[in-house]
């Protein structure tokens, strides 16, 4: 058969299709990982470099934070030397980056604590909230988006679109305050502030993170719903849907097995882009909800000029984003393999 482009893997077919398929799948995952790594490693390097350069740019010094009322030029010099800040910039960066690779983010200027530990503690809170926000966002966004797509151009669609528009323009802090007033103070359903680790029980944990997660999730709900609606509508226009129809597949099966699968891709990709915003918005929500998380730590450190802590926060957030995107890419590669073939 001359016209069939012989695939390059053809010689391997003797090994049997199952083996070939397994290798195929593994190869795909590895390829995705490699491709993502090729993107993310430079990203990480650049981002950490920018982050590190912040100190030099800021002109802040641990001496001022530490010495307080007793700062004299000599004392400042002494403290800076003690922190190794008198060395050349690149040497400092190298040292810091070396530590970074070992998970060592240095110590805080304000209280001398190990920053990795501090961030680790805050991260528990923030990740709990962010994960729940993601879950809420994805679930609600999914329901709204699919309903709107399936009831396209009806009043249901318009109502959902209107609602989604409304919540997408509500800044997290406005949402936060409204939620506290309504649910915590008004209805006494949830506590208004604070955090309880999951180890102390699932219910209290959930109770404490529900409102902040809800506040944080609005943006996600809006984006997922909008994107899902658009891509589902687009997917329904695709020929493969017609193809499935003429093969006699039921509408349910077509929706679940074909449309959804392809419509999910763009929504997933939005989620990858949404994550940094989610991490960023934690600064505001944690402030409003009195959570001692990552965002609050970032704000406090930034406000107190604790440069290593700020750097640590940024690095960790970058790692979070990178890891999250890596996961999204892996899932995407699985859900929509076609999207992976291009550049």
């Amino acid at each position, binding site marked *: *058969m*001359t*016209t*069939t*482009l012989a*695939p390059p*893997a*053809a010689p391997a*077919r003797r090994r049997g*299709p199952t083996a*070939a*398929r397994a290798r*195929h799948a593994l190869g795909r995952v590895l390829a995705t990982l490699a491709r993502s790594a090729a993107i993310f490693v430079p990203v990480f390097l650049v981002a950490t470099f920018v982050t590190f350069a912040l100190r030099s740019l800021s002109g802040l010094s641990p001496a001022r934070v530490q010495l307080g009322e007793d700062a004299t030029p000599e004392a400042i010099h002494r403290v800076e030397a003690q922190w190794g800040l008198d060395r050349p910039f690149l040497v400092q960066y190298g040292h810091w980056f070396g530590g970074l690779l070992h998970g060592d983010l240095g110590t805080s200027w304000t209280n001398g604590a190990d920053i990795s530990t501090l961030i680790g503690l805050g991260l528990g809170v923030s990740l709990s909230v962010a994960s729940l926000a993601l879950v809420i966002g994805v679930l609600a966004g999914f329901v709204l988006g699919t309903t709107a797509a399936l009831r396209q151009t009806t009043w249901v669609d318009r109502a959902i679109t209107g609602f989604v528009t409304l919540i997408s323009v509500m800044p997290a802090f406005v949402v936060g305050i409204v939620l506290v007033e309504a649910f915590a103070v008004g209805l006494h359903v949830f506590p208004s502030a604070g955090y309880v680790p999951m180890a102390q029980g699932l219910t209290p944990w959930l109770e404490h993170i529900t409102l902040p997660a809800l506040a944080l999730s609005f943006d996600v709900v809006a984006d997922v719903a909008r994107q899902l609606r658009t891509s589902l509508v687009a997917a329904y226009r*695709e*020929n*493969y849907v*017609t*193809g*499935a*129809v*003429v*093969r*006699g*597949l*039921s*509408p349910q*099966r077509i929706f679940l*097995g*074909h449309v959804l*699968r*392809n419509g999910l*891709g763009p929504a997933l990709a939005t989620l990858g882009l949404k994550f940094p915003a989610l991490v960023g918005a934690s600064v505001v929500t944690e402030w409003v909800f009195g959570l001692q998380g990552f965002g609050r730590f970032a704000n406090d450190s930034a406000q107190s000029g604790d440069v290593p802590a700020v750097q640590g926060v940024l690095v960790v957030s970058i790692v979070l984003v990178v890891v999250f995107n890596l996961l999204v890419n892996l899932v995407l590669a699985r*859900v*929509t*393999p*076609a999207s992976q*073939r291009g550049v």
Partner: protein
Amino acid sequence: MTALSEKRSQQRSQQQSQQQSEQQPGHLNASARAGSSPGRTDAAGGSDRSAAEAAAATGPDGTAPGPEAPVLSVRDLRITDRAGDREIVHGVGFELTPGKAVGIVGESGSGKTLTCRAALGILPPHVEVSGGSVHIAGTDIADLTPRQWTALRGSTVSAVFQDPASYLNPSIRVGAQIAEVVRVKTGRGRREARRRGLDLLRAVHLRDPELVYSQYPFELSGGMLQRVLIAAAIAAGPRVLIADEATTALDVTVQAEILDLLADLREQTGLALVVVSHDLAVIAQVCDEVLVMRQGEVVEHGPTAQVLHDPRHEYTRLLVAEHEQYGLDRFRAPEEETR
């Protein structure tokens, strides 16, 4: 290709004659009448009459003998775009008995695709059947519920289209997409469906079906994809296959292979074919009967040989002339004739 297919092509002529003799009554009925009808070429009126006559002869009311009953009969089909409030197709009619092939040829926008889609129950929004009827295996499609449609499609009537790549889900391996049809339509188990899927891929002459089975659509060439689509379309053993411009986007060599494949299926399984193309030659190659459409009307309808040799309508003549003046026929025709 191998000795097998050669053998097949030898069998073909025998089978063909055999089938023809078997199906003589039904076939002759349609074509003979069409041929003898004097008003044939002046559009709707003619085809109306022929359809009505054909219906009277074969009749869904059980007057005609069982096996020759048409699997697809379209009578004076009219299609209207409700949004633009205009009639797009003004009365198309034809009948298709098992193992036969009807070709529809016509200029762009003449309503070929809409006719096919009407028969599949997948007209675009706002576009409706506004007159006439379509019977699939004796059932009037106007009475079908969505659920019944779902049951009918795939197992009685199925279709393949132009641009095969877009008619397969890009995210799912092709094998799974075929197996899905097998499982859903024939209720087979997973393993069984896989075996049947592989058989189907083999049946459409794909080399190395195991590999193809586990590939994604974007990993296959256009010709391979069209075969996969055909495999999926015939997975549930339909009685009618509608091929709407199924070979238009393909290379000529690949087109020839696909046309061969369709002919094989027709012979081996008694599949009835509706072949839509804008190329008269393609239709000439596979079909017993041709409808020539123009601006929503059937301008000529008759047995292929007759339409080719004695085109009545000006448009049909243009179609023939295209080949004879600008095409290969110009060089080949004399040779053929001398042979």
